[in-house]
């Protein structure tokens, strides 16, 4: 944040690009208003792609880009969208961006794209994207909407990476594909925790994350 605060004076004329309000928009989703653990959005993909760190990272980047740019575009054209069909307009914009991400992944990272399988396409229905469009981008100027998209994408990414690091480290003894647990540990009887690779463990880990977060911050009790 320090690098950003230094740019404030030059642009203090109107509302500066990184004014206090805009910084809040960017920062809140990282913890106090985290899309996954507080707003309960976008849980589907958060759980399914976290067996290893690499797909989780790529998924996080994809979701951040799609959320940010769809917020930007929708906020831009929000005055010309008729209320009744706004859902379809939003979905088409999101689907367009996701198609771009999917084609790029297929072209440059085919193995990861195979591993993520349908979950790239499912970014379209990721509740974070739609939720933020409805709750924020439809009522705000493009720039804050863009920041909000970035913030929520990164907030989502943090949870993904935390869960993925725990699951990969204990489940297969590696991080990003590099072996971390040395061979002698296995020789002495250390065993990878196979449970970590199974779907239920993602749910437990997020449950525990929520528990810790709310224990530290009683404001969040019973928000959902």
């Amino acid at each position, binding site marked *: 944040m320090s690098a950003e605060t230094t740019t404030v004076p030059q642009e203090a004329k109107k509302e500066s690009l990184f004014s206090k309000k805009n910084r809040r928009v960017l920062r809140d989703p990282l913890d106090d208003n985290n899309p996954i653990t507080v707003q*309960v959005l976008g849980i*589907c993909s958060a759980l399914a792609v976290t067996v290893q760190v690499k797909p989780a990272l790529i998924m996080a980047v994809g979701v951040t880009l799609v959320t940010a740019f769809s917020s930007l575009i929708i906020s831009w054209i929000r005055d010309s969208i008729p209320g009744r069909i706004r859902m379809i307009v939003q979905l*088409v914009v999101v689907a367009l961006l996701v198609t771009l991400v999917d084609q790029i992944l297929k072209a440059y990272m085919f193995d990861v794209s195979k591993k993520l399988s349908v979950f790239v396409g499912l970014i379209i229905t990721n509740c974070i994207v739609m939720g933020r469009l409805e709750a924020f981008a439809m009522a705000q100027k493009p720039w804050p909407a863009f920041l909000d998209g970035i913030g929520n994408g990164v907030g989502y990414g943090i949870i993904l990476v935390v869960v993925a690091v725990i699951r990969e480290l204990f489940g297969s003894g590696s991080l990003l594909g590099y072996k971390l647990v040395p061979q002698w540990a296995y020789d002495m009887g250390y065993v990878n925790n196979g449970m970590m690779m199974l779907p*239920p463990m993602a*749910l*437990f880990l997020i449950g525990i994350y929520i528990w810790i977060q709310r224990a530290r911050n009683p404001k969040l009790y019973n*928000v959902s």
Partner: protein
Amino acid sequence: MEHYLNMLVKAIFVENAIFAFFLGMCSYLAVSKKIKTASGLGIAVIFVMVLTTPLNYVILEYLLRPGALGWVHPSLATVDLTFLAFILFISTIAGAVQLVEMVVEKFSPSLYNSLGIFLPLITVNCSILGASLFMQEREYNFSETLVFSIGTGTGFFLAIVLMAAIRERLRYSNIPNPLQGLGIAMIITGLMAMAFLSFSGIQL
């Protein structure tokens, strides 16, 4: 026949949309507080899924597949439009949901009111789009697609009703404050997913 029965059981129990792929978790967590609304949403999801997945199959087969446009004109036989799949699939789903919303509003206003915001949200229920994408990825034929969509929808219904039943009982238990609500819901879902793991490997 056996093949289809096997697929149905697999889609409902072994590869349950919620417990194996986490599809549709958002509405699953948000609407599972009462059995009545949960079963309403479950039925709506089954309906929309059985409607849209075969429809998307037809779109994929006769419009998008490489060479699928051959029936229009032989010169189009080399066109591959699969990259349009996302946009067309989600448009079909959004249209079908709009239809369901109108029907429910007309015939059952009480259900319409209790489902509230979640009816339009079926559009963004991952399990619906997920079923269409799995259909594309696994290259099912039409009857397989139909059976698969029935199975996935039923699996979602089963999961959300079970969860609602547990959460109704949970109101009387003494849960640590920070764990209340979302936290305990996650952990219960995890336990249920573990229970469903025991179905794995079942073949009929």
